[in-house]
């Protein structure tokens, strides 16, 4: 609901079409959740709101930021680089696989 509100605000204030203002909404949510993770607030919010924050893009951004924070002491390459996708990697992999499968189904049934 808050995303919908944000979408309308962007659409009216910046005079953007709905599709482009949607991109801005996603960017805002990603930045906001990453900052909240970094200052140590997001994990308390997760305890309270649970899946409402974990399932959307906020959860994805949070999983990457929290992993990066966790491994920052082990260096840029072997620490952050190797571990930032520790939780998010599985979402990316199966997200891409699912897109291929459903894209193929759509192509075969509806024809593109």
């Amino acid at each position, binding site marked *: 609901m808050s995303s919908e509100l944000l979408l309308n605000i962007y659409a009216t204030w910046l005079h953007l079409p709905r599709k482009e203002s949607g991109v801005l909404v996603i960017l805002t949510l990603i930045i906001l959740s990453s900052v909240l*993770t970094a200052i*140590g607030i*997001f*994990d*308390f919010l*997760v*305890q309270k709101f*649970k899946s409402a924050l*974990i399932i959307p893009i906020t959860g994805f951004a*949070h*999983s990457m*930021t*929290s*992993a990066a*924070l*966790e*491994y920052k*002491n082990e260096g840029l390459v072997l620490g952050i680089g190797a571990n930032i996708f*520790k*939780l998010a990697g599985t979402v990316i992999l199966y997200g891409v696989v699912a897109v291929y499968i459903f894209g193929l189904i759509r192509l075969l049934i509806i024809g593109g």
Partner: protein
Amino acid sequence: MTNKYNNVYIKNTYTIGGIYESQGPLKKYFDRLYDQNMYFGEKSFEKAEIKLLKDNISYLLKKVNFQESDIDLLISGDLENQIAASDYAARNFSIPFLGIFNACATSGEGLIIGANFVDSKRAKNCIVSTVSHNMTAEKQFRNPTEYGAPKHKTSTFTVTGSASILLSNEKSKVKIESSTIGKVIDLGITDVNHMGAVMAPAAADTIYRHLTNLKRKPEYYDLILTGDLGFYGKKILIDYMKEQYHMDLSKVYDDAGTIIYNLDKQPVLAGGSGPCCSALVGFGYYFKQMEENKIKKILYVPTGAIFSPTLTFQKESIPAIAHAIGLEVTNK
């Protein structure tokens, strides 16, 4: 295997508690509190855990006015991979070192090894230490610490703290009277969020064998204290002892995981866990009660789920262990 000891005494102990422990009911019984943050002035949680143990052993030596050369053996263990906290802390002391791992039952394993060295007169003074840090345990066994994934109500909360116990052959107020080494028990539970259920059968087996081998009743002890079964595990153990072994523990039994925190007010779910949970309660709180003659005989039963996250992902069930150590007040 049950052993009796004649000349193993606990000369002194030193305990350090962290933030959550200092908000709990046992605050005033810990020798020192590290309650400012979780880093203790170090750069990472792992280094903080090393500092916790290093400081603990130094303060214990200072408390009893001993030099490093007076100690024959240092036994220590923790939850980190390669028991890193113990290894890295031990490099600061010129004391022969044995590193051990029994997860949350580590303090029990250490006490049994130490007691055997002292009883057989191979060592005069021996320090048994253990340390745990909530954040390193979270990182090691669960998700990144900042992730804060919602947890099941049966899961427990790793204690931050460290405890060192100085065993000696010189007579003092509290003696280690007997011990039973636990068997690894696995009833096929795979739920890592319910360690109480995993460890309760191991505790039951050890308590039963200890009591029958020594021909004692549960009431022989003023208190039977398990390590970290938590709120639900505690109930499971009482039921399991009744069903399986026909023994009623309910009058003398308590669990350290439910004592160390205020379960109603603190965000610790089913209670405390970790190698230091049993050690802080047993040797921070109850040891002082024994010194003041308020409690005479305790059966200390630290419990541990000795599992590897890798094998849990490979669908293996979780093995558990518990050791029993009988503590008694002497007439000194």
